[in-house]
């Protein structure tokens, strides 16, 4: 691994102490734009799902993306990650124009997503799921996997990855389940597994599509702790979430989508008090 940011190591707080000074800290300047959506537009048939969405995500933040049903959140997500190609507009990630790239290429660039409904690979074990993710595995070449001469090198890399995989699983408290089929996990554990898998790809930025949906409060607490811990280590998050408590308490800034456009953008306080947001989305029922 060229960039081994000890993902998942030291779940017990040591990481917090050194998070600002670790080796990658210096290239993660706050305030710098890491992801930019520029006038994204996409229609399906006669329906314009996303109509000129424009926002920026700053490095090191947990940015929330909210909006009522049909506001275009999922489509925006799919446009950012290459699942759909925008009709017009551009996506810029880390200074590179990634508009129209295939999803796998975008992921290799460091922008990795999770799915709304956890899509774990059911018939593979939890460990296999996690071992799948690391980029540039030597053993993914056909000849390297078959020819006798390369086997040793593959096995050595596997051993390294295995070590990292165990650490990551321990970080998400999934290590006891490592040899189970991923299909036998509970809904919340699947969400954790998805996070673990995403982290193993060495991402710069992680897009989470409703990570808290179907997760019980205890587990939700745990997931949020992990999220902040990772944020402190320098990861950037973009979060689509329906749970207002989660968004208001953990995301900053927040981007509000409505009818395929950005309605408001700013800190929780700002968004909460925005007249248009209250009217369009929250229906004026939020006590503040």
């Amino acid at each position, binding site marked *: 691994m060229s960039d081994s940011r000890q993902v998942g190591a030291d779940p017990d707080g040591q990481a917090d102490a050194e998070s600002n000074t670790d080796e990658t800290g210096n290239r993660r300047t706050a305030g710098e734009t890491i992801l930019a959506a520029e006038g994204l537009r996409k229609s399906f048939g006669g329906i314009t799902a996303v109509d000129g969405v424009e926002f920026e995500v700053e490095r090191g933040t947990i940015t929330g993306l909210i909006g009522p049903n049909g506001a275009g959140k999922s489509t925006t997500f799919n446009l950012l990650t290459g699942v759909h190609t925008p009709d017009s507009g551009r996506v810029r990630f880390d200074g590179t124009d990634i508009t129209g790239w295939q*999803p796998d*290429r975008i992921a290799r660039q460091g922008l990795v997503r999770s799915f709304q409904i956890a899509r774990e690979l059911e018939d593979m074990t939890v460990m296999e799921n996690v071992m*799948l993710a690391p980029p540039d595995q030597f053993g993914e070449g056909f000849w390297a996997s078959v020819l006798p001469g390369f086997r040793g090198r593959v096995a050595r890399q596997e051993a390294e990855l295995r070590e990292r995989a165990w650490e990551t699983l321990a970080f998400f408290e999934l290590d006891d389940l490592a040899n189970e089929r991923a299909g036998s996990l509970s809904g919340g554990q699947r969400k954790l597994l998805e996070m673990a898998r995403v982290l193993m790809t060495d991402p710069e930025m992680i897009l989470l599509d409703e990570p808290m949906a179907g997760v019980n409060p205890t587990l939700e607490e745990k997931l949020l702790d992990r999220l902040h811990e990772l944020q402190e280590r320098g990861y950037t998050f973009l979060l689509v979430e329906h749970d207002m408590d989660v968004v208001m308490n953990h995301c900053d800034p927040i981007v509000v989508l409505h009818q395929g456009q950005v309605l408001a953008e700013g800190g929780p306080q700002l968004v909460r008090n925005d007249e248009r947001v209250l009217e369009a989305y929250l229906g004026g029922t939020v006590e503040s």
Partner: protein
Amino acid sequence: MTPAPLGQLLGALRARLDAVRGVVGNRQVTDGGTVQRTTSDLRFVAGLALGLYVLFLVLSLLGGFQSAEAVTSRLQSVTLLALVYVMLTLALNLQWGYAGLLNLGVAGFAAVGVYTMALLSLPADGLGLGLPLPVGILGGFLAATLLGALAALPAIRLRADYLAIVTLAFSEIIRLLIRSQPASEFTIAGQRLGTGGTDSLDLPPNPVKSLLYENPDQGAFVAVENPTVIGDRLFTAGEAVGFGPSLVERVVYAVLMLAVALLFYWLLVRVGNSPFGRVLKAIREDELVASSLGKDTRRFKIIAFAVGCGLMALTGMLWQMEGGGSTAPTTFEPELTFFVFVALILGGSGSNTGSVVGGIVFVAVLLEAPSFIQRIVDTQFGVPSAPETLFDAFTGVDPFLGYFLSDTNISALRFIVLGAVLVYLMHNRPEGIFGGRTEIASPIDLSDRSGTEGDES
């Protein structure tokens, strides 16, 4: 055969397997690496083969085979066909079991290999280019690999059903092309080439013939007169147990096939146990997940598909060169493809050992056993002939038995049994004999935590 005994058979096989591997339910007791599992699997397959040999030996004795030569000859043909299916099933398992690529053109890719090899290696004064056999075999392998990649390219980015349609059509196009009048004989740059059309086409003498005979291309009767040193020894040894030269040759060929089948198995187990195989499994499960984790899924799919097609071609060539060494387009009808699928489903899609067991059980129990049983009924009880008139049908003792077990109907009966077995499997054991077991995709033991915790290593 009724479904109930089959269920017992599957249950027994499963129990045996669990005993060998120390498995409880579906959970693997994580005490061994892949090497250990491979050896225990091979031991299981060897035990299965041995059991089937004993069974078939008994069946052939009951069926009135008189000499050791006749029994061996019959067992050799069962063995060879079983190995062919094992190899085809292994190749299909790489495509369908691992990567989820539905290839309905197994027969077509095998045919491409056989006929390309024939065109390259048949004598130049015949219908070929007269190149050496290894060149022909390599050519057949590469042609199928390339055509596989080519046929898959447009369809592989779409859903699995499109690939199925494309490959089925491809397979039929190949077969009809081989049969067609223009292809049966044509001339390019003064060189006469051809597929022989609907007729059977004599293939170049197989490597075993070259090993045993000084001049293998001069026809069986002349060749036998001039054995090589090795051939001479083997023929003498064969004579001692009453085997004629042609049987000796066929037995040696079966041993060669066994070696190649083992090579296939070794190769595919390695692919399955590698990060490459891990990505294939991920693609089968959910391609969008694999690509959103940064895997270039098209590359993996095309490589897996092309390699599978090449292996099918190789199998086809080795199969058709055996014995008399001729081939015909009727061998490559779609039913071959479906048979291989049945074998894979029977054994357990996604498992290499399952593919081996599926191929063996399919050929032994479903393809070959019926004719053995027919023979037994024939010799022991004397099969009454099918009723000739309506009057006979109503007054005869057992007209239906005679009807079902006649030579022409036994093969039709086979399809009925096959259908029943498939329906039964789909309902009661959709994952096959070896399905549902976890073959972890890694060259190392992933449950080993010694690197992180520092406990006993």
